[in-house]
């Protein structure tokens, strides 16, 4: 129980009448790498965004390191926590987006140091050191002074990964991080993620790259219509898929 990093129980989320998540439960221990696959509209991305509190959710509990995030019990009533607490809870996780979302007016290094300085209140020198460390880690040691517009998509995404990792999160969330990349740039990003996984980082990865999911994860989740339809080891999911729904999905995807 001490190693439990993420615990989601019975998560429900709807936009108006449309229910996107219909009761998702999931647990992750330290060092777990779980890939989430499924067709668009199955709720994968929404699940990730709920964990990062970018989306509100109506039912269920998300715990990180044993502590509930986003909501609290006030006199028996489920209440959203203060904006300040949301910001704090959010800092427990690092998120990498499909569209990189680097700050275009800041250099690669400044993209990383901004939150180190403003959120973690680290000194300028220390922040710069940390940024350089992570830039080296993602294979871009001499790109610190480059601006996002001067980097390729793959390089931008690697900076975005470095930016999230530099904040020393408990859990990394990857939201279809290669979907906006040219095919020849995908592998450099996936390789970085694999090497971070090898370091023991706990990661929840939404992806369309089946081979990558197979290689990087110790668990794979297949989501369908707002629910976890299948969960198992990569071999169980990809090699011995039992349900028709999963087989139909896998048939239509490239491995």
């Amino acid at each position: 129980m001490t190693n439990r990093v993420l615990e989601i129980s019975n998560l429900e989320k709807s936009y108006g009448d449309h229910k996107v998540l219909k009761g998702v439960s999931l647990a992750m221990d330290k060092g777990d790498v779980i890939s989430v696959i499924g067709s668009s509209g199955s709720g994968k991305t929404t699940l990730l965004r709920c964990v990062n509190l970018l989306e509100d959710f109506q039912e269920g509990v998300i715990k990180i390191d044993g502590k509930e995030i986003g909501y609290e019990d006030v006199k028996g009533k489920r209440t959203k926590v203060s904006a300040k607490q949301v910001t704090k809870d959010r800092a427990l996780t690092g998120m990498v987006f499909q569209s990189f979302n680097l700050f275009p007016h800041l250099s690669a290094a400044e993209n990383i140091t901004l939150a180190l300085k403003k959120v973690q209140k680290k000194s300028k020198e220390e922040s710069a050191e940390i940024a350089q460390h992570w830039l080296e880690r993602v294979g871009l040691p001499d790109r610190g002074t480059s601006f996002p517009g001067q980097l390729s998509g793959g390089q931008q995404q690697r900076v975005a990964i470095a930016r999230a990792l530099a904040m020393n999160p408990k859990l990394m969330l990857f939201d279809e991080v290669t979907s906006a990349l040219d095919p020849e740039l995908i592998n450099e990003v996936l390789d970085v993620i694999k090497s971070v996984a090898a370091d023991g980082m706990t990661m929840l990865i939404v992806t369309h790259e089946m081979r990558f999911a197979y290689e990087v994860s110790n668990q794979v989740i297949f989501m369908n219509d707002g629910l976890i339809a299948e969960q198992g080891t990569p071999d169980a999911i990809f090699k011995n898929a039992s349900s028709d729904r999963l087989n139909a999905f896998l048939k239509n995807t490239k491995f």
Partner: protein
Amino acid sequence: MSTGFFNELWLSKFMIFRGIYTCLFVSFSSIVIGTFIGMFVGLALTYGNRFTRFLARAYTDIIRGIPVLVLILTFYFVLSVIGINLSALQAGITSLAIFCSAHISEMLRGGLQNVPKGQIEAAKAVGLSFFQTFIFVSLPQALRQILPTWINTAVEIVKGSTLVSLIGVIEITLVMQQIIGRNFLTMQFYALAGLIYFLIGFSIERTGKYVEKKVAIK
């Protein structure tokens, strides 16, 4: 003829300098005060609740719908009726500043709303608060985007400052009228006025272009 013009020009040089000074003073004050007010109104337009948004929207739309001259005359003549006596200079600066603020607020709202949603989410994801996101992520991008329009507004304010001559502020236009009243060199001195306005406007625009280039996103 031309010796007469230069002679008259020499004689009236101090008046002209004072006119230019007054024009610059009025314009500069209006732009600074207007930008300051406009920032707050723009913030209310973008992030305010329903009530503050309504107030800010009403302010912006009403001011933008009124000709500057009417604003100037109102502040000078109408306010004195209710006991607020502004000097011509004060009334001129106030009305131009208010005119300016309505434009700035609308600009800022547009600029802030054009910052992609992903930027805000990325800022949240690394743990920046609402205020930090605004200062370090949204505002720098919005300001770069509104800079060209802001420069335009500044030039418009300089040109609009001629209107305060109508309530007796002795700026470039009124100085020229006074000089012409003395020597009847109508064409020459109005041409000179035009040239001075052009040079002021042109310098602002050039400076703006330079700054734009300097801070451009690479």
